């Protein structure tokens, strides 16, 4: 597995973890109506640090000592993935605007802090879309390409 693939896998895992924490927090705060505890937050932060360390270690490992960081094919793959992610940003923003108009109503309003959460959520989803777009172009398999 080359560095671009590893990066895409770790971004996707990180994005998945981010979405999981995001959904978990949402469920805890708005469905079960409980505030997150300090101990819980420490566990989540410790887990995130552990995962980051593992990803950094994996990314340091090379296929050979002379392995390049990325080559011309990686750059084409990354460029295509950025294009896919860019299109998805607009699609998601359009869907969010359209859906919020239907759900809340055209004259409805939402708290300002919710916009920040939506932006972070979209950023997370975009990173995952970018990673999937990279991995699809590598046909998902680590050894092949």
């Amino acid at each position, binding site marked *: 597995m*080359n*560095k*671009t*693939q590893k990066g895409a896998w770790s971004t996707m895992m990180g994005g998945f973890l981010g979405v999981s924490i995001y959904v978990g927090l949402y469920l805890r705060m708005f469905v079960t109506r409980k505030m997150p505890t300090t101990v819980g937050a420490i566990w989540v932060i410790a887990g995130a640090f552990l995962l980051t360390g593992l990803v950094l270690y994996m990314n340091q490992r090379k*296929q*050979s000592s*002379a*392995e*390049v960081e*990325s*080559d*011309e*094919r*990686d750059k*084409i793959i990354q460029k295509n993935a950025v294009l896919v992610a860019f299109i998805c940003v607009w699609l998601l923003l359009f869907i969010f605007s359209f859906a919020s108009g239907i759900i809340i109503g055209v004259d409805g309003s939402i708290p300002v802090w919710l916009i920040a959460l939506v932006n972070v959520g979209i950023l997370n989803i975009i990173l995952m879309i970018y990673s999937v777009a990279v991995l699809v172009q*590598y046909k998902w398999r680590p*050894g*092949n*390409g």
Partner: protein
Amino acid sequence: MADKGLTNKIRQLRFDNHEMTQQQLADKAGVTRQTIIAIEQGKYAPSLPLAFKIARAFGVGIDDVFEFDDHHSGS
């Protein structure tokens, strides 16, 4: 990224050159092993500079590694 008209003899040349591994060829050409695999399988058409680097890694001309057939070209 692939071109149907472009074929190559990389696999054969690797074996003719002391069974050179894909990783060794990748290191000589300055690309990743995955790119060599993709080129070898005809899934990726390399740029001209990369094609030259691969040919030079085998010590042959570019025509000895790559062949282009107009009739089967995707472009």
